[in-house]
């Protein structure tokens, strides 16, 4: 009996007290680290006066004003003018009128958000497509100077964005790609393709060569074997890589702020420019930040098993 007990509990298994105190510290850290995020989320539901009150309000009456301000532009009007208008149409109208303002039109948040979506998905699609072909070639064929080529591919991702942006800015100006979605898609594809090649090579390395060889003995060509055998096997890896590329393109700021100003501007350079009367409109910033971060939270949870691979370019697999 005592023997079974001692094998069940290995000598290196930490004691229950050690586990519990470790858990306590980690959970405490997790809660502290979440506080700023919780705060910005809560600020999105505050009124502007509540958002800048002292002491900071933890309990407050929720308001849609932040979200209304995020999506609209407003102009100040006299009380007489507002009274002369008909009954308010919808919550936002009502909230705005309470501040003696009327809605003048839609803000740029929605179009910027859509730009972010188009550019992120477009560049991810291209990067993963290019990446999966290259990764397969690097994984299966003898390529002269393969290690140097792989290092070259990775080193392009390490370059400081501002340094790359100077010639890109000049080049895009020459060929008319400044402030276009296509220009941003190509640029983000170039940055992401290095990550895609490295990550996908790791995933494809794990698929036994014998699968394709068997298919090729059955009369498949190399290309058929690639499409019919390797791609389906690599589906999970491709999905994880795509999410990593999406997150990068979604979060990117330096290129976006230097190379776009209107037409193709994404959400990250736009959010800091949300200002109300007399300074930043913090509830609107909170609302804009919340909406912008939600997709990332979802992706992080989806990716949790592959995060380590993604951040080490596929080198560490756990």
């Amino acid at each position, binding site marked *: 009996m005592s023997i079974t007990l001692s094998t069940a509990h290995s000598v290196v298994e930490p004691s229950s007290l050690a*586990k519990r105190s470790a858990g306590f510290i980690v959970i405490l850290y997790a809660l502290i680290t979440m*506080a700023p995020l919780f705060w910005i989320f809560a600020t999105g539901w505050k009124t502007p006066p509540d958002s800048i*009150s002292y002491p900071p309000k933890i309990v407050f009456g929720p308001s849609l004003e932040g979200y209304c301000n995020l999506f609209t532009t407003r102009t100040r009007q006299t009380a007489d003018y507002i009274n002369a208008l008909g009954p308010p149409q919808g919550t936002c109208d009502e909230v705005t009128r309470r501040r003696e303002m009327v809605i003048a039109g839609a803000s740029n948040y929605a179009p910027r958000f859509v730009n972010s979506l188009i550019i992120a998905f477009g560049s991810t699609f291209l990067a993963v497509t290019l990446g999966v072909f290259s990764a397969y*070639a690097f994984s299966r064929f003898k390529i002269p100077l393969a290690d140097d080529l792989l290092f070259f591919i990775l080193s392009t991702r*390490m370059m400081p964005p501002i*340094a*790359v942006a*100077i010639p890109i800015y000049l080049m895009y100006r020459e060929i008319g790609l400044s402030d276009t979605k296509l220009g941003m898609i190509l640029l983000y594809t170039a940055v992401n393709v290095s990550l895609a090649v490295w990550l996908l090579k790791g995933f494809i390395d794990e698929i036994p060569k014998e699968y394709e060889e068997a298919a090729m003995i059955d009369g498949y060509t190399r290309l058929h074997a690639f499409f019919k055998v390797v791609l389906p096997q690599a589906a999970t890896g491709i999905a994880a890589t795509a999410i990593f590329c999406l997150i990068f393109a979604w*979060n990117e700021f330096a290129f976006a702020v230097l190379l776009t100003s209107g037409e193709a501007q994404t959400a990250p350079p736009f959010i800091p420019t949300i200002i109300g009367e007399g300074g930043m409109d913090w509830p609107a910033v909170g609302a804009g930040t919340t909406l912008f971060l939600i997709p990332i939270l979802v992706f992080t949870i989806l990716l949790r098993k592959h995060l380590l691979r993604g951040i080490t370019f596929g080198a560490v697999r*756990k």
Partner: protein
Amino acid sequence: MSNFESLATRAVEATPPALSKAVRGLSDKTIAWVFIAPTIILLLAINIFPLIWTIYLSFTNYAANRPNRPITNVGLKWYRDILGSPEVWAAMQATAHFVFWTILFQTLIGFGLAYLIDRKFRGHAFWTTIILIPMMLSPAVVGNFWKFLYQPQIGLFNYAVSFFTGIDPSSFEMLGSVKLAPWAIVIVDTWMWTPYVMLICLAGLRSIPGYIYEAAEVDRASKWRQFWSITLPMALPFIMLAVLFRGIENFKMFDMVVLLTGGGPGSTTELASITLKRQAFEAYRTGYSSAFAIILFVAVFGLANIYVRTLNRVKQR
């Protein structure tokens, strides 16, 4: 029955379609190059061509806002100017301060957390995912909302500090004070990237086989001794990996700091990338900033080389 079977075999034989006949001629070598070429061409067009252009510009007096001015060769003038410029050295010092302290804090806290998570308490997987969230966020958006948290009086950060220490929350400005601003950016970066170091350290700790500890127990090595002679040395390549990558990333830090402080107050938090942006896109000293960019390139390239070597070493584990 046998009829069905032969039909099935014939169907299989017919599956490689007619198209394959044309493609069958492609050798593996051709396929390899066809598969790799688009990636290489894209990188040449969007990374290498611009890089060569930057090198060329760094020897000229070109200014992006005066494209019609005749271009003259200035030789190594910009490189000499940069290496002798107090502004650049100030930026390098600010960058060094930022890189050193962020890496120190992130490694200590990140390794500590990984060590605790490796105790595998109940719910550790869930809490690990929660802890990882900050590093997935957009640095620009993070910088922007920390500006709100750092507001004197109304900000959560000042309020929390005054709650725990009793210091008047309006008596200090994290972003407005020359003394505190360099630490303000260190705090935010540590908040954001400690999870990154933690995750890699955790992988390192988990790569240590349990039998080594069991053998150490048998030899009656103390826990303290086990930590210093097993845990730390075996996790070290992973720690190095995290440190190098954070070093490279923070050396070129731009987005988070630009939104948090804009380089201010004065130029106390003006990191190298911010100086570069000012010279290139505000002063339009294109030649000068190209030379500066090349200097940063060379530094990052050297670091990246060491990083990839460490990467390959960790991979063999």
